[in-house]
């Protein structure tokens, strides 16, 4: 019989657990007996529910990752930060002008940024968080939207900010303002919506509803996932 699985020991909130090597933090927790109800969403690195902070021996640096994506290491000390209290303004984005005054009036704390860059260091997506807050201060909505595009809203930036800024809520406001007021409307999208409204897909959908399981399986396997060129 092959050698036993190599094991690693990790510490969850101080308590040691021995788990097989190679598991993600999330699977390691489940192996150790936890049932994840919160702080666990898509399991695919997109939803941002499982932000995790950890340290490893001999290194003062705080490390970060998503529990569903990060492989557990021997002697890792970790804690999940599934939720962090945040301020969130309510607004009708259609009514807001895309200016620095809008961002500053809804999130005045962005002016408290001292430029420490702690947000950037803790971002599991390696987003230039401090830079987009700087852009927000001067009203460069397009730049905030662009720099923050890959944000999963895990909240780790807000957990580390000495100025108590909730960066990701500022960023999503900027992306909404950008989409609503700055970006040009996509003509092909409007055309497609109109086409669908006219019922262009109805016949295909009806055929699928009527199809048997074997036919659906064949269609699914043969589907075109993404065309080479649009």
């Amino acid at each position: 019989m092959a050698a036993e699985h190599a094991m690693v020991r990790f510490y969850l909130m101080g308590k040691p657990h021995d788990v097989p090597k190679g598991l993600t933090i999330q699977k390691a927790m489940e192996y150790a007996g936890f049932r994840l109800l919160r702080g666990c969403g898509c399991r695919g690195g997109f939803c941002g529910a499982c932000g995790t902070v950890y340290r490893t021996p001999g290194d003062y640096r705080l490390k970060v990752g998503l529990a569903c994506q990060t492989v557990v290491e021997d002697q890792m000390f970790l804690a999940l930060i599934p939720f962090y209290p945040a301020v969130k303004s309510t607004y009708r984005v259609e009514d807001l002008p895309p200016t620095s005054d809008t961002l500053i009036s809804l999130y005045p704390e962005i002016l408290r940024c001292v430029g420490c860059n702690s947000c950037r260091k803790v971002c599991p997506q390696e987003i230039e968080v401090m830079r987009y807050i700087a852009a927000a201060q001067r009203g460069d909505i397009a730049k905030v939207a662009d720099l923050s595009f890959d944000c999963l809203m895990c909240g780790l930036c807000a957990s580390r900010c000495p100025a108590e800024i909730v960066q990701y809520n500022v960023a999503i406001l900027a992306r909404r303002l950008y989409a609503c007021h700055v970006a040009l409307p996509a003509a092909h999208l409007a055309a497609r919506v109109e086409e669908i409204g006219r019922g262009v897909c109805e016949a295909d959908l009806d055929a699928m509803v009527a199809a048997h399981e074997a036919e659906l399986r064949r269609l699914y396997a043969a589907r075109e996932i993404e065309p080479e060129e649009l």
Partner: protein
Amino acid sequence: MRIPYFPGCTLHSKAQGFDASARAAARALGIEMEELPEWTCCGATFSMSADSVMGLVAPTRILASAKEAGKLLTLCSFCYNTLKRTNRVIATDAERRRKVTTFIEEDYQGTVQTVHLLEVLRDDIGFDALAKRVTKPLRGLKVAPYYGCLLLRPAEEMGFDDPERPTILERFLASLGCEVVDFPHKTECCGSFVAVSSPDAARECSARILEVAAKQGAEMVVVSCPLCQYNLDQAQREVRASSTRQTRVPVLYFSQLLAIALGCDDACLHLDGHAVDPRPRLSTWLEQKSQATVPA
């Protein structure tokens, strides 16, 4: 000549005329102001706290990003004051230098010289040479130079000009052909950010400066600070509405007059939006005369 340029937040928002006119004028003089690819707020005020280094972090990172060129150009008096004084701390205080540079993970020894555009005009171009580059001399325009506080003080740290009797703006204005109006309040405080907490007190400071300038015959006041510009200009809107004071003196950035005198495109001036419209008095030198017909 290319110089790394730190605009600061205000020059990207409320003071776009300062930024655009300076860039256009510098280009006309063969100076390319290269905006730093990435920058944050400088902190807006120099941190005077001796037991905290947090306020030094952002300006030090900005300075370090210009270390290859060794020079960093800025326009706003607040940014200039903050960057220059921070650099002095980094260059002379080994303990705070070690703390800040370890924190930002940059090897920076305080080698960058922060320069103001007025210094570049004086030292690299020369005011005599500048006068020869002027295509539209502003003859007959009576201008009072207003320095405020932060360009000059604290004098031993800023080393910009004589804090009591500065002359750099006077020499600059003379090279454009202006008639320079001397007035005793040119280094008084405009009220600065007291405008937020006690607007009346700040308005009083600004109104007095303007009154004295006007009494000496000034038709314009020039500044190099977005907050001075705001306070002096707004004070006239508000004082006029609430009291008997009737001073009407447009307040411009020095770079706006420079751009006009060098024949730059009017689009860089952003002369709209002033509480006291400068366009009527400047109409002689502006391309689009129709602008000047907009009522003040």
